[in-house]
């Protein structure tokens, strides 16, 4: 199990984080941007679990941070989807370019 260096696991989570970031930069649809954010949060969770398991096995902090991140991500997704549905009701679109009421 420890024959895989920790850096390989961290490479996976880094790659996932930057995939999510690419999606966040290129997508213009709010739901797909939300999905990209979920990918980024998940990559952070992988890091917490790996650090806790292999570097500080006598502590539990990484596990708890992961649990709290998952909880807050769930709350965030629910609030974001409520906002998206409300926006769709008033604009008939969920494109971020069209939600510019505060600009003019």
């Amino acid at each position: 199990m420890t024959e895989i260096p920790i850096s390989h696991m961290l490479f996976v989570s880094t790659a996932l984080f930057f995939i999510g970031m690419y999606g966040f930069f290129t997508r213009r649809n709010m739901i797909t941007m939300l999905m990209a954010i979920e990918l980024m949060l998940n990559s952070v969770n992988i890091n917490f679990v790996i650090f806790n398991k292999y570097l500080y096995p006598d502590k539990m902090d990484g596990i708890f941070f992961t649990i709290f991140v998952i909880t807050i991500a769930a709350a965030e997704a629910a609030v974001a989807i409520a906002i998206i549905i409300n926006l769709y009701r008033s604009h008939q679109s969920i494109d971020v370019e069209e939600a510019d009421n505060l600009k003019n």
Partner: protein
Amino acid sequence: MMSLGAIFFYIISAFILLMGILAVTTRKIFRSAIYLLGSLIGIAGLYFWPEVEFIAAVQIVVYVGGIVVLIIFSIFLTQQSGKEMPRTNLSRNIFSLLGVIAGFLLSCSLIHQYGFEAGSQPFDNAVSRIGLYMLNTGKDGFALPFEAVSILLLAALIGCIVIAMKSVPTKSTK
């Protein structure tokens, strides 16, 4: 010669990254949600692999069973799911790709330089131990964040209802 566990790790990682790339590049929004589902299941597998079973179970219950279903619901409420999304313009695509690759290389070089060393102690993450820590008010306990998160969840729940509620047109009394 790699052991079976190592081969599993690389297979799961390749699956996660492939599904993630497909989720952010496909132009049909419903397929994007399904690829996200695959990526999240792969991440749950990645938690099962180092024997962190409780987090893997939480991942499946909350993400796969909750958030993805919520996202698919909102896709059905707001989009024609068969329609392709418009293509992003080329310059934005190129510049975000460049930025992302630069960030990835920087982070990878930092990780490589630091060279994390794994300890050999066993890691006890039985659910009973997690529960004891979670409700412990002592020095290592997590009782305060637990309560704070429960209040946050309640606030988010009420906030969602208030935001998504259809506003009733009120007659002006003046």
